[in-house]
């Protein structure tokens, strides 16, 4: 059969043709590179996905409830489930968003939840990305191209069509839209995920805009066109960080941003997707408390497990971490993109001692996790040889009128055989994720 693997070269050529790239800054200059695609899909059986779906919806619903709570009544804090220090000392908690209820009460409209599957088949949540998770466009366009090169495979295999992501995204934007058009706000051509921004704009019909295209008048956000006309904007799928949204609210020294956009947002005149301040819930330290949130808000046990995690902030955990550092992975809670992650097993005696000191001194800054021996997935190289690499899965959960899980996801694999780091910025590649429609 004419499988995607047999057509790997053709598919990668098509990805190049369609400009499927991501940007990276190296030594101070911008480089655009292709995101290596491996044609062997990750396959998730229908029953497994049904379980994942339930667990992801449960988790994202709880995270949205947590965000609503910490920015309003703060009951979870007063009830002692999450320590006050952990919320307010997080750089993701934004005082400026306190007391602001976003349109329809939704904070995380598009959630990217990173999971790994252990060798015993159990899925573990690695982290929640509730700010501006990216990556859905890659398996989306890869599927389109694989269907072009290997139609028979999709005729035979019972793979759920993942091309509904655009409809899900548009429905999510429309649901919270406060009147006006939808726009996708991009930092511009030299952002790492610019391909995705422009692709989603094209496919959803949203206008792709930059800061200078938008302005606020009487608490209403407008897009100005080239003739100085204005069109009201009802929803902004923003792909820039919170701190660069509005210089009058966040960084007064910032030269970018849209002055008064936060006023329009506070007045309920525009939806920001995702809501600013979501970092309060996807902080690596808060991750530890998500199963407790699920129990607290939903009265249910968490369906999906966290990787076993320790908070050096707590004395008992700190002792365990210091005693077992050589077998743990340490993560800096303020870092992302695979940065700030170190493995105890890679450290020399001196480095271990340095890290013990650092963790003791800055206990809130780090979390420690057991290293999960997650499954390796086969990757084919240019010569057709297959090697096994570590891979994770970013599942996309969209929250609008209901919470829905996209029946696909971004499977990322490590560049080197022995590496656990799968981030594209670290040279990793991606696979399509096939969810089977029946066993």
């Amino acid at each position, binding site marked *: 059969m004419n499988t995607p693997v047999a057509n790997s070269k053709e598919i990668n050529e098509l990805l190049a043709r369609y400009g499927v790239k991501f940007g990276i800054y190296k030594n101070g200059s911008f480089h655009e590179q292709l995101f290596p695609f491996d044609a062997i899909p990750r396959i998730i059986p229908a029953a497994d996905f049904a379980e994942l779906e339930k667990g992801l919806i449960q988790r994202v619903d709880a995270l949205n409830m947590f965000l609503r709570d910490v920015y309003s009544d703060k009951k979870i804090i007063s009830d002692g489930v999450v320590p006050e220090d952990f919320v307010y000392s997080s750089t993701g908690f934004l005082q400026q968003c306190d007391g602001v209820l976003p349109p329809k009460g939704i904070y995380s409209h598009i959630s990217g939840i990173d999971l790994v599957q252990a060798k015993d088949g159990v899925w573990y949540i690695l982290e929640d990305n509730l700010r501006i998770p990216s990556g859905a466009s890659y398996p989306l366009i890869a599927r389109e191209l694989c269907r072009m090169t290997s139609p028979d495979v999709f005729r035979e295999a019972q793979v759920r069509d993942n091309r509904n992501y655009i409809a899900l995204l548009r429905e999510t934007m429309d649901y919270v839209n406060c009147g006006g058009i939808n726009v996708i706000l991009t930092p511009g*051509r030299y952002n790492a995920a610019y391909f995705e921004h422009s692709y989603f*704009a094209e496919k959803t019909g949203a206008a792709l805009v930059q800061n200078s295209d938008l302005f606020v008048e009487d608490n209403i956000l407008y897009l100005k066109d080239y003739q100085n006309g204005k069109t009201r904007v009802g929803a902004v799928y923003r792909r820039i960080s919170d701190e660069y949204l509005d210089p009058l609210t966040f960084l007064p020294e910032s030269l970018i941003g849209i002055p008064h956009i936060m006023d329009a947002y506070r007045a309920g005149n525009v939806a920001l997707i995702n809501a600013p301040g979501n970092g309060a819930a996807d902080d690596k330290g808060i991750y530890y408390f998500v199963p407790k949130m699920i129990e607290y808000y939903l009265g249910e046990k968490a369906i999906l497990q966290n990787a076993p995690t320790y908070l050096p902030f707590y004395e008992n955990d700190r002792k365990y971490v210091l005693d077992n550092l050589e077998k743990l992975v340490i993560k800096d809670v303020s870092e992302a993109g695979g940065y700030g992650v170190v493995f105890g097993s890679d450290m020399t005696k001196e480095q271990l001692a340095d890290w013990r000191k650092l963790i003791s001194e800055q206990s809130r800054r780090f979390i420690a996790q057991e290293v999960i021996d997650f499954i390796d997935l086969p990757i084919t190289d240019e010569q057709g040889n297959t090697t096994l690499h570590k891979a994770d899965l970013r599942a996309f959960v969209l929250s609008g009128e209901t919470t829905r899980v996209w029946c696909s996801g971004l499977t990322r694999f490590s560049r080197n055989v022995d590496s656990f780091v799968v981030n594209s910025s670290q040279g990793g590649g991606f696979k399509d994720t096939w969810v089977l429609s029946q066993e």
Partner: protein
Amino acid sequence: MGTITRININNLFWLGRYTERVFITLNSFFRFSDKIIEQGGEFYEKYLENISVPNIYKNSDDFFDRYVFDENDPNSIYSNLLRALGNGIVLREEIKTPSLSYLQMAADKFKACRGTDKIRYDLLPVRDAIYAFWGSVDSNMTDFDALKIIHLGKAVEHVDMELRLSLPEEETLAGLQNLVKHVERYVGQSGCIINKVALSALKSALAAPEKLEQNRNALIADVEELIEVNFLETVAV
């Protein structure tokens, strides 16, 4: 008009200009490559003079390599193609992915041809991809006002290059007529600023075709000044 942003209009205009520049210089280069079979490579100096490109090349081999393929040579055909692609990349949602893919294909194919000993043959697919690009924007773009701006850039560049390359007068006059028509019909609604003095000069040239040759340099300046888009506070990519 829909929601064309101020930044986009500049990119639309320059997308039209750069794509047409590549197309015309490629065709012109093909003709030149054919001529040198008999006339010899040193003929390239005359070619550069015609197209107002400074002769920075060591010899004809260097010219054949760098003028065509060097992305760091701002006058090379390839660097102009990369500028067209750069403008296209920021316009994906306007011009649509299939149109952008033809520019990407043209750039990839172009790059892969460096070092070839049958340059005209190997670069043919680049020209095909540009033809396909034009067909694709006409078929796929849903905002006709945005499409008109691309065509305006194309029309400006077309006349500019025809004048510089001293192409047959009939062709140049036809291009000039097309440009004037385009400007009078569409530009008023496009948000571009028209230089009325330059427009008047171009219309006078059409009324007195016999003076085309003697006015060539002045007309090039008029074409360059005809449309003002830099008020948009952005620069071409």
